[in-house]
């Protein structure tokens, strides 16, 4: 079905993916020194924190000295809203993007022309890594607008020489019509939206396995290996994980190759570290912790040691594709997705794993946290599917029981499981909202 790795046309822009490690480290260090100097000269907040620590850009003697630099966090972007972290004068800035701003003010990010070029190259390398090439017809269902997904993928796909359909998110029936009638070979969207497309396709009597579609580039939210398996089985495509975040550049920070064994970080642009989220201490490869990224080649808004809140591990195990870039393990949770209930730390991914362990076909769920008479309660709402629906009350109650037990044995907290009608939970065209915290603290 899929071509073997050696059949993939090599795109010249992918050359840095294969740099010998020593050469890559030298390049990273050279770029790190320049970007730290730039941030020190133009970002007041960064300079102030460096001065407080008594560290100067000239103190960087090797890559490992990055550990001496202060972290940046998401609230720094809010506190300096809108333009406080820009390191280029406004007349050089050619693009602004902003987050959806679910909590208060959005965060704003800026690009000069050189930054757009870096981003475009990262996206071309992302497409090329999973075998997408000139001649492909790419349906770009990431949202266009302030969200970085749409335009990021768009620029990369055009540069690659593919045909881009800038359909953006939403209107699923039209997405399917276009996919079928235009002979789409590659789709870009969030994994939860692709599940929605699959549901809609089966209602419209369209079998994606019969279409030319062969690859999906899914990102902008955490997803699981079982979601990948389901997507691949039901649509016959290969589902690839792309990683990125607006604060760093947008999509294209890391991308899976055809081996599908975790996204390779484009390390010559984005320097990764893993830290202990409690102590801030830098951890070694293969150790799990919070991913911290430094933009090595972005000028308008450098980010030095940005704490992503994504929990993962770096691996330097050689990859069959030959890339020397380290990979991150699948990001299934974020340190700020975590919620605490009755003193226990719970990640939505644990709830998802518990639900999938029971039936394997219950991907749509939402966690509602409430406080009743001072006691925290967790309700997990799960959409009923045709596979698990039974005509008898007893069988459905037994299903609720099994789900509830699976959750309790996974996280140690009893949850009330509530079966709900299909498609009543918010199935975003953007990111799935997994946790609704209604507790009044």
């Amino acid at each position, binding site marked *: 079905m899929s071509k073997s790795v050696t059949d993939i046309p090599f795109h010249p822009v992918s050359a840095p993916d294969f740099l010998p490690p020593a050469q890559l480290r030298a390049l990273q260090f050279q770029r790190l020194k320049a970007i730290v100097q730039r941030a020190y000269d133009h970002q007041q907040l960064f300079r102030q924190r460096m001065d407080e620590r008594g560290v100067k850009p000239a103190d960087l003697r090797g890559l490992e000295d990055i550990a001496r630099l202060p972290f940046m966090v998401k609230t720094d972007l809010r506190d300096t809203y809108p333009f406080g972290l820009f390191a280029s004068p406004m007349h050089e800035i050619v693009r602004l993007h902003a987050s959806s701003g679910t909590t208060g003010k959005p965060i704003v990010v800026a690009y000069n022309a050189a930054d757009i070029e870096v981003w475009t190259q990262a996206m071309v390398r992302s497409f090329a890594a999973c075998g997408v090439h000139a001649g492909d017809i790419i349906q770009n269902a990431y949202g266009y607008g302030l969200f970085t997904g749409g335009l990021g993928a768009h620029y990369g796909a055009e540069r690659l020489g593919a045909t881009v359909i800038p359909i953006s998110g939403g209107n699923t029936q039209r997405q399917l019509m276009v996919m079928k009638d235009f002979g789409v070979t590659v789709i870009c969207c969030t994994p939860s939206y692709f599940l929605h497309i699959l549901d809609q396709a089966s209602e419209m009597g369209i079998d994606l396995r019969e279409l030319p579609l062969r690859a999906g580039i899914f990102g902008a939210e955490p997803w699981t290996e079982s979601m990948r398996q389901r997507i691949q089985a039901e649509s016959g495509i290969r589902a690839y994980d792309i990683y990125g975040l607006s604060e760093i550049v947008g999509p294209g920070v890391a991308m899976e190759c055809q081996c599908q064994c975790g996204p390779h970080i484009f390390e010559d642009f984005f320097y990764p570290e893993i830290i202990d989220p409690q102590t801030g201490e830098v951890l070694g490869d293969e150790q799990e912790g919070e991913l911290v990224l430094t933009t090595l080649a972005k000028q308008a808004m450098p980010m030095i040691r940005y704490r992503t809140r994504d929990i993962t591990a770096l691996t330097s195990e050689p990859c069959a594709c030959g890339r020397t870039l380290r990979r991150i393990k699948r990001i299934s949770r974020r340190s700020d997705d975590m919620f605490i209930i009755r003193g226990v730390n719970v990640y939505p991914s644990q709830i998802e794993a518990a639900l999938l362990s029971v039936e394997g076909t219950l991907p749509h769920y939402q966690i509602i946290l409430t406080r009743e008479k001072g006691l925290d309660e967790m309700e997990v709402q799960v959409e009923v599917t045709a596979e698990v629906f039974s*005509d008898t*009350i007893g069988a459905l109650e037994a299903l609720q029981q099994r789900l509830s037990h699976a959750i309790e044995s996974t996280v140690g907290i009893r949850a009330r499981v509530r079966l709900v009608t299909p498609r009543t939970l918010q199935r975003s065209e953007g990111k799935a909202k997994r946790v609704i915290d209604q507790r009044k603290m």
Partner: protein
Amino acid sequence: MKLKQLSLFLENKPGALSAPMRVLAAEGLNITTLSIADTQNFGILRLILRDWEKARVLLEQNGFVVKVTDVVAIEVPDKPGGLAEVLAVLEGTGINVEYMYAFTLKKENKGVLVFRFDDPDRAVQTLQQHNINVVDHLEIFRRANGEA
């Protein structure tokens, strides 16, 4: 001799029943009878209607989870002891009634009992051996509509 029954998952909340009813009404599909089984959180709506295949497609297109189940309809005189007589026949056979509901036929002094058995085929056989009138698909809709 079995009837097709549609079962729908419903949440136990205001408006949950009217949504599927609107779907069927819009297409002019008439329901012969229905029953609802409920718990605190959810319910199962069970429908008997002539155009069950069309109804199923419509409901599924509108996002409902639908299951088709074989049920057995039995005609009994609308008088005391009607149900007891049927149950007496089944006693000792090991056939289990999972649930049942009943309705009466227009213009006839008859009741129809709708049963979900664990083994519908054996139930039909047993009932017919005891001369109990198991009503078939065509007849039930004809008579429910008061046609001669």
